[in-house]
């Protein structure tokens, strides 16, 4: 059997997905047996121009991590889509926008003003901003355009599969790679994880009755070690987050923050969490309900921590 041709790419991301890909450990050898990596800027010396020369659909699968933040990210996403038979959004940034997607609460100008003018260590009285094209005495220099809005990969090109997580856990990564190696691919659009249910489903904490009178912030209380964190008033996102990670954060006494995205069938993870939270508030009094919800200081940034670009809201309107 001919070896598979695989490409890996990062757009606007932190590099954690690259480390996560390597975390499959000795299984890398199995991967190397079954597949040749034809493009991986972080690991091998193949340049954009080499990819441009490849025939369309000549790459069997592309694992694309990172969101679309600049014109360069978009250009490469389109290029790799044309060259690849299967396009996989790998990790939360390409799947949902992730934490850098919180940038959609603001716009480019606000981001530039903060970074290049307002920050107290910045000394920039002339208000110099980075420019896409700059004339210097020796010639011209260019850098990619920084977009107003962070986009997901699926908002940029057609995507076949999604691998959730920030970053995906080792076993989740392997599930996707194994499907590629064996050719046993699921239906188009599948989110590849061991679970279609929530993190709660795999969390060992004891669950009783979810009735909340008060929400606490993680620094305010020391939670009981065995009991459900949400029942103790900590805003644990496990209830509205896809499982597959093994409930790592709750087992470290910290609430889930939602990095594996929505459970199967849910379009908007934030709205799902909000409705789940609303249903467990232990009050029928509108005033009291409002007081209880006031304990959640940043609802938009918490409910959409990983999914703002992919949500129905997509971004804040800036007046």
């Amino acid at each position, binding site marked *: 059997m001919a070896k598979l041709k695989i490409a890996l790419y990062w757009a*606007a991301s*932190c*590099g*954690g*997905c*690259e*480390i*996560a890909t*390597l*975390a499959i450990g000795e299984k890398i050898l199995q991967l190397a047996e079954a597949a040749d990596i034809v493009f991986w*800027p*972080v*690991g*091998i*010396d193949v*340049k*954009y121009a080499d990819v441009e020369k490849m025939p369309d659909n000549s790459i069997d699968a592309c694992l694309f991590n990172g969101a679309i*933040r600049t014109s*360069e990210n978009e250009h490469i996403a389109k290029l790799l889509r044309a060259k690849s038979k299967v396009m996989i959004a790998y990790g939360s940034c390409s799947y949902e926008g*992730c*934490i*850098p997607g*919180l940038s959609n609460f*603001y716009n480019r100008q606000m*981001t530039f003003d903060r*970074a*290049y003018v307002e*920050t*107290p*260590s*910045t*000394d*920039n009285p002339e208000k*110099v*901003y*980075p420019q896409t094209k*700059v004339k210097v*005495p*020796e*010639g011209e*220099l260019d*850098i*990619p355009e*920084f977009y107003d809005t962070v986009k997901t990969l699926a908002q940029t090109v057609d995507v076949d599969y999604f691998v959730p997580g*920030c*970053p995906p856990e080792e076993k989740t990564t392997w599930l996707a790679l194994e499907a590629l190696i064996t050719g046993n691919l699921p239906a188009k659009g599948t989110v590849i994880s061991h679970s279609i249910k929530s993190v709660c489903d795999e969390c060992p904490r004891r669950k009783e009755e979810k009735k909340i009178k008060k929400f606490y*912030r*993680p*620094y305010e*209380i020391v939670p009981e070690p065995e009991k459900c964190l949400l029942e103790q008033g900590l805003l644990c996102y496990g209830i509205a987050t896809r499982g597959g990670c093994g409930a*790592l*954060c709750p*087992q*470290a006494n910290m609430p889930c*923050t939602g990095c594996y995205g929505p459970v199967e069938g849910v379009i908007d993870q934030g709205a799902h969490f909000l409705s789940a939270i609303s249903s467990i508030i232990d009050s029928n009094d509108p005033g009291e309900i409002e007081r209880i919800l006031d304990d959640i*200081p*940043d609802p938009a*940034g*918490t409910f959409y*921590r990983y999914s703002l670009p992919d949500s129905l809201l997509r971004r804040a309107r800036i007046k």
Partner: protein
Amino acid sequence: MKKIMIDPITRLEGHGKIAIFLNDDGGVANVYFQVPELRGFEKFSEGRPAEDMPQITQRICGVCPEAHHMASTKALDNLFHVEPTSAAKKLRELLYSSFYVTDHTTHFYILAAPDFIMGPDAAPAERNILGVIGKVGLELGGAVIRTRHENHWVIQTIGGRPIHPCFGLPGGVSRPINEEEREKIEKIAKSSVEFGKLSLKVFDDVVLKNKDYLDMVLSDTFTHRTYYMGLVNENNKVNFYDGQVRVVDPEGKEFCKYAPRDYLEHVAEHVEPWTYLKFPYLKNVGWKGFVDGNDSGVYRATPLSRLNAADGMTTPLAQEEYEKMYSTLGGKPAHFTLATHWARLVELLYAAERMVELVQDPEITSTDIRNIPTAKPDEGVGIVEAPRGTLTHHYITDERGLIEKCNLIVGTTNNYAAFYMSVKKAAEDLIKPGKKITEGLLNRIEMAWRPYDLCLACATHSLPGQLPLEVTIYDAQGNELEKLTQGIS
């Protein structure tokens, strides 16, 4: 005028670009090192709950999330006016030391060693980690993989997750470790010390006993006289987790020493229109452009800088190596950029020894790991030494603890002016009129920035091979004359 583009610099996050402009006679007219990426953390952190910042800001870098998590957690201690318990501080520093062992191991063996062990002119296909293992033996290769793997287990055990930990809280950490975990970490710490010693022996055998390499380390092409920055304890000894920031001048005299909260009195950042990254400099010297010396505010914050800025190490084996290094290099401070690799190995040994000290501390399994803050949050600064430089997180919140303002000065950013200058100087010294531009020559230019362990958004550097380049040379009309590539094929 000819323009040589090195674009993208792969194996760097943030796709760095280097443009080398040549004069009509073929000498170097100017060099630009561009960082074409920004993600905007300082803006979108606004409005977020402060206690979420350790988990938000670590998404700046998936290679060194532990550094951001730790600087941020310390900023929260300061912001909420709460002192962590003694056991919590030790657990944080234990995780952090373990992280240093993995990070420095990765850099030395996978990025730096190929140049020295295989040689700068070796065929690119050999000049990578596989070549290194082939030459020094599978046993050492196995030790590299084992050291990384075991210390990742330590990070997950204490930090809750293998990548992007979740354990940091103002006043403490989220979970204790038990005796069984402690025993396992102790074994890993001790084997990390052995690994640190072995790594210094490899450096000694391969670099120090080879006169050609030592001459290259000491050559002017790879030298800059700058200020040096690093975190020190109360005795001016190196510490990665806590202390005051000390800066020494190019003669090695203390220029300033400051507590994290005073960082704005000492550091400022310069903006250029052709790059998304800013250039930090010493405010009280001033921005004088891309030049070194006492009158220029350019400073470096690297492993060698930390050793230059301190009076020594607190652990015995690392102290011995520290003394040996400076006696070989002809005293302190050492301005030889390539000696940064050596300093990194001294630090690796220190981090491993520090792990042993901490894991043997009777308090390390204490369950007294949280102090609950009671004061109103307002403003906080947290500083740690990230492997690639002094890392500063500064937050201002409203009284509910929501971020109003956030300012970050990240490890690699400190060194932006310096590594730009290092590349420029190497290019100017090595590209001469009439001299053929060979692959080995380009690799020597590359060797000028590799010691900084660039992490432009923070970079990754954990894969086989070495930093590949593509250089395209254009004539005065912009026609492509020649294209050279290097890296593993």
